[in-house]
């Protein structure tokens, strides 16, 4: 603190502190605290707020735990988000390795440019694109039929299939970039040394490259999971009759029932799930929060 004032003078230092405090307090900490607090209060008409009926209780959370449907949806959301995370890793890792170690360095910037384009395109448009493709009469079926791989159009939008496909497409790049960064920082000599000592390719990956890439993998995994579990667009657009995502239930509470209190409780549960995931991944991969920042 002293150093800050010395370096910038009292006036500027004060400005920096005020701006940062506004951000962290007013935009982050206080709203979360308020969300948390609100989740314990009952949904009341305006006149009753602050009155005798306005007591703290776990009712809103109990609503969740007592509803088998909600529990099921929550569990499936977590499970499928994890599936998406694993799939993204499986797809992205070979690419990350390719980009950092195999591709010639002249080509890499151009490749990156191409890879970045979908990211700049809005998420909703990306989901929408798949909505068209996966339609029963859509181009995917058309292509597969034409190639003779299938003889009947496949109903892609059933179960959670389409959601998973959509989520993977939308978020795979968020796994690619951190893993790429991590693999890039590995000295190629180490890989060559392993080969020189007779290690087969899969062992080199398992024992040399993957361990080094841990922070990147953790970062990617956390990001993809969080985005998937919290995604609203993809599960809604690519929904089928049998699929339901947890965020949809939150929406229901907030908009259809106008019950912001139960909505907060459910939102908090979602946040809790993400935080637990982050913590587990951090422990598992033995990385710190600072390694996860983009």
């Amino acid at each position, binding site marked *: 603190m002293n150093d800050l004032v010395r370096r910038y003078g009292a006036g500027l230092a004060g400005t920096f502190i005020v701006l940062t405090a506004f951000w962290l307090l007013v935009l982050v900490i206080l709203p979360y605290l308020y969300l948390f607090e609100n989740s314990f209060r009952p949904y009341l008409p305006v006149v009753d707020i602050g009155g005798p009926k306005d007591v703290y209780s776990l009712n809103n959370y109990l609503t969740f735990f007592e509803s088998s449907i909600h529990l099921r949806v929550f569990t499936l959301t977590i499970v499928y988000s994890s599936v998406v995370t694993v799939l993204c890793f499986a797809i992205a890792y070979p*690419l990350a390795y390719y980009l950092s170690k195999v591709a010639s360095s002249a080509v890499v910037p151009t490749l990156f440019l191409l890879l970045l384009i979908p990211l700049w395109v*809005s998420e909703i448009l990306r989901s929408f694109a798949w909505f068209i493709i996966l339609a029963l009469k859509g181009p995917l079926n058309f292509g597969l039929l034409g190639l003779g791989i299938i003889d009947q159009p496949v109903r892609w939008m059933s179960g959670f299939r389409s959601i998973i496909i959509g989520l993977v497409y939308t978020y795979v790049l968020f796994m690619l970039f951190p893993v790429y960064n991590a693999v890039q920082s590995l000295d190629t000599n180490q890989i060559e040394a392993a080969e020189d000592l007779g290690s087969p390719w899969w062992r080199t990956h398992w024992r040399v490259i993957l361990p080094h890439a841990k922070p990147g993998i953790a970062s990617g995994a956390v990001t993809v999971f969080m985005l998937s579990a919290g995604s609203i667009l993809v599960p809604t657009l690519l929904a089928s009759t049998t699929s339901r995502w947890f965020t949809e239930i939150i929406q229901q509470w907030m908009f259809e029932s106008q019950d912001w209190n139960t909505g907060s409780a459910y939102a908090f549960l979602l946040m809790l799930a993400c935080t637990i995931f982050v913590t587990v991944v951090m422990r598992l991969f033995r990385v710190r929060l600072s390694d*996860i920042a983009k």
Partner: protein
Amino acid sequence: MNTRRSNWLFHAYMVIFLAYLLLPLIVMGGAAFNDSKFPSVYPWVGWTDRWFLDLWNDGRMWVSFRNTIAVAIAVVAMAVPIGTAAAILINSLGGVARSALYGLMIAPVLTPGAVIGISTLLFWNKFSVPAGLHLSALGQTSYIAAFVMLLVLARLQSFDRALEEAALDLGASHAQVLRRILLPHLYPAIVAGAAIAFFQSVENFNTTLFTRGTYDTLTVYVFSRVRSGITPTINALALILVTLTIVGALWYEIARRRQQARLAALEAQARRDERAEEMTVSLAPGSVTAG
């Protein structure tokens, strides 16, 4: 490992992946020209531009567009100063304070947008502030400022603190040091931050959905149109946005490469000058320049 055969596999995988990424966008763009009520490329009915016309005439779309831009500008106006201030602040700290603050700043990025939206809505509602675009801007800023902060903080690492001290030593006030020395150095990161903030704001959906009240933004508009009854006007919009993105990205990249080439040339010249000077000096040792 790097046998020619496995390299070929890798190249092929890369190409397939790129196709996987880009084909859906092409399909989506293509559907904008197909004269079919439901967006598709097969069956192909015929070329048309009526969807673009419909788009142009869609009043609600224009309102959403205007709202989106307004929110994005507000977010940039808030996130850039906040992010920059936070980066400078955290850069002067160390130890526990630094890690703690850093964690707090990154937390919104790791939080689901829905949670950010709901918490923002509830918090300001307590002060009787209704839902609307202003809340969307505030909610978005909470995590977008973190991006700006990260960019500026990274750029700060390459800043030579001695420059600040040299400026002070020469008599500059703190404000002058900031304006003439620090901010010019941070300028690339600030511009990049502003660009990121803008585009992140435009494409934000989750947080906006809960905070917008009755107002539409582009993302919300597209969402509601897709749910209610779609026509390829959405595709037309999508194609325009995607094209703008590609053009923007290409332009940025070309500009960046040209700048890099220019810098490399200057430095090469400096090295040549340096060698020339060394030669001159070693040919005349101990000579004192006359005053």
